[in-house]
């Protein structure tokens, strides 16, 4: 958070025609050599495993060799797309993702801006540290806290509402299907807000102080400084992060939903990863699980490119 990150300027690369590629390659051989281990790393751990996708088109049985497996084509994809439950979990996944993105993006930015406006180095630092500590608490513990807080028996929230006279009888928060998305989103916000704001805070620190001084001289108040200098200053960071998170929309994991869920809210709580686990690996249906995985990847790629395209068009900022 203390390091000053400067948005890196594009390296001044000459336009190289392809026939001159090898010449350059020889010139820059050390750079190539230096990057080689990482290229190999990515290849080994991110590309070779894609070979496993073949499983989705086979009736895969462990302990048989690749050539002994029976090929079944798109059978498992058809099965997946024909399952009603799949659409339910897809809806839940995307809904909770979008809510998470909406809240989990705006609030940390706001928080970062507000912290930046604070006077007093010590206070600022402590506040920041305290706010990101929950990030290190595991979901198991967070779920326990949430459950306790929302409990009808001496749960903090119910007690407070009763004391304020807002309600007469305790509310069964965890039994309300339609509230589940909200509860997940809010607990996620509590846990990750501080942590997510770190990067924005760092970006703000990177804004040239002269700009603020110039603005002050021109008579800009706090609000105008935020609006015209702070926010535009971190705009590129915001957009890059936003595009990347959109690519991850579908893979939100399942810990929160599994730990906070219960039989009464399951129709709003089950997410894609949990579905893949229960109906795929959990039943030794490796092929089906892989099919779900491939589907996920495609949706992610489509989302990523769409988001990237839109931002490229309207804001000239993009990751690719």
């Amino acid at each position, binding site marked *: 958070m203390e390091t000053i990150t400067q948005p890196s300027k594009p390296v001044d690369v000459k336009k190289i025609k392809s026939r001159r590629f090898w010449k350059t390659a020889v010139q820059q051989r050390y750079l190539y050599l230096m990057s080689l281990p990482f290229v190999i790393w990515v290849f080994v751990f991110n590309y070779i495993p894609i070979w496993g996708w073949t499983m989705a088109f086979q009736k895969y049985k462990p302990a048989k060799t690749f050539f002994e497996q029976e090929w079944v084509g798109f059978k498992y994809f058809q099965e997946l797309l024909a399952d009603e439950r799949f659409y339910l979990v897809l809806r839940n996944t995307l809904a909770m993702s979008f809510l998470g993105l909406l809240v989990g993006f705006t609030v940390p930015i706001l928080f970062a801006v507000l912290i930046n406006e604070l006077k007093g180095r010590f206070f600022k630092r402590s506040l920041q540290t305290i706010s990101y500590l929950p990030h290190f608490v595991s979901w198991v513990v967070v779920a326990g806290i949430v459950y306790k807080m929302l409990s009808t028996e001496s749960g903090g929230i119910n007690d407070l509402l009763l004391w304020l006279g807002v309600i007469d009888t305790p509310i069964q928060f965890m039994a309300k299907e339609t509230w589940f998305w909200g509860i997940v989103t809010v607990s996620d916000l509590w846990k990750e807000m501080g942590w997510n704001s770190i990067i924005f805070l760092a970006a703000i620190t990177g804004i040239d102080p002269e700009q603020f001084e110039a603005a002050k001289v021109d008579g800009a108040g706090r609000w105008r400084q935020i609006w015209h200098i702070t926010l535009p200053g971190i705009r590129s960071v915001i957009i890059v992060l936003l595009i990347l998170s959109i690519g991850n929309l579908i893979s939100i994991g399942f810990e929160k939903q599994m730990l906070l869920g219960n*039989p009464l809210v*399951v129709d709003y709580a089950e997410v894609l990863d949990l579905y893949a686990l229960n*109906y795929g690996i959990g039943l030794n249906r490796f092929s089906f699980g892989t099919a779900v995985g491939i589907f996920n990847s495609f949706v992610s790629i489509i989302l990523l490119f769409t988001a990237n395209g839109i931002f490229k068009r309207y804001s000239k900022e993009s990751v690719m």
Partner: protein
Amino acid sequence: MKKKFSKAAGSLVIASLLASVIGCSNSGTSNDPANNTGNSTGGNNTGAVSTEPMTLTAFFPDPNTTWNNMQDDVGKYITEKTGITLKPEFAVGDPEQKINLIAASGEYPDLISPKGTSGALIDAGALLDLTDLIEEHAPNIKAMLGDQINRLRYSNEDPSIYFIPSLEAIDQYYFDAGGPFNLQHEVVKELGYPKMRTLKDYENAIKAYKEKHPTIDGQPTIGLSLLADDWRIMISTTNPAFWATGAPDDGEFYIDPETYEAILHYKRPEEREYFRWLNHMNDIGLLDKESFVQKYDQYKAKIASGRVLATIDQQWEIDEPEATLKAAGKHERTYGHYPITLDETYKAANFQQTGFNGGWGLGITTAAEDPVRIIKFLDWLASEEGQILINWGIEGKHYEYVDGKRVFLPEIQDIRVNDNNRFKKEFGIGNYNLSLRYGDGVKDSTGNYYTTNNPEQVLEAYSDVEKEVLAGYGATYWKDLFPQEDEFEVKPWGAAWNIPVPTDSVIPVTQQKANDIVRKRIPEAILAKPADFDKVYDTMLAELDKAGVKKMEEEYTELVRARVELWSGQVTK
């Protein structure tokens, strides 16, 4: 943790059965050969067996750190008596790989215990069919199995016997009941030990006590609390439906004892009435509002506070909070177990026997030079002499008879309790469960139990309050309140939940779908307004139908029938 439903379900039921036995298994404590040859049961033809030294190689799938190369007391005695010395190899790491490797290499040990990985060995033709060997040379094993010998057969297609089961014991007897309808001792004491037989009795007791004591230790009294956290919903919420309607535990299914037809047990009309009763309990405010929302931790904490009057659950799920209550001296807040059913026409089938389930054991390979000698060796271990030896050790050295009762010598008992590793390593007791063996509760010709677990231990573990309550009901054990084993027929299909399901069958997927539906709809039905109960229940049944449950039931019926056929001996070569 949610990923292995079917397996978890199976192991749970196993766990629940195990848990109803007091104490843990007797693997740590076995005994030794009484030299009381005078008592030996018929057919123990040890004398006929050559005692020439012979070394057998063997493979065991689990590491055993207490193995002492048969230089322990029991081992030496076995070698002396039979001439046999075992040279075992214990699996390090993944036994499956090693066993597949053994199967592929063609170099077999004389004896092998492959647990679940027997397929490769059988495909490779590595194992001997023991049917004739047992018939001709193993009178003790034969006598022990009786007509259950068919339960050792491999499958309908290949009815050979490849293994002498050593994991599951014969005639295992459960000394006590462990649920599922539990009521605080304080409740029955205060109400003067009312009759506890039907759900109505149960409800009335809870109601009467709760009205009298709206708070316990300053906190509101909870009538009945259930648990629905993940798979635990089966133990506390859905399984009790068949317990209360006189059906035994066959997992998620109910097997018709006449036709062997399998249906999801929720489809039985009487179970609908059980859930209707839970709905009614919710309606009149006796059911804990948090039942289907709470996690296991919250549930335990609640019980440990002593204000939950009744739980419908297995003992092993409430052990922990009960221990807390006991530690706090609140013995009257722990629970008794009652044979509650829907009405008096049903009989709680908790103790209906499944019979011997066969299972994992030791096989003889084609590499064995003298299979007859080996089977005689295993048969000797299954004799009374052998059984007492492996469970108790050697008379005079490890145990003695005090007034006709077999007990460990005091110094041996001390080592047994305080240094179990030394107990096993030095004496070898518990290390020779190689052959068929008797379970807890089976008595030998001297009237003593073969194993070292016995009902007296159960009694010792009861608190004074517990004894008082039991006396109030005129019983000694909780089990006495229940219909006993001999009131039921032994189920010819064993326990349905341990029938292996072929991996490419529709059963696992449909079962998962059915679980998803049931685990959502049952809580919903219980919490619904009484007028809406039937609507929700019907919706559930319709959804189950739509999920393809019919097809699953048909396939399951086939599996059950195939097993009955196999076990009844109708399949022969």
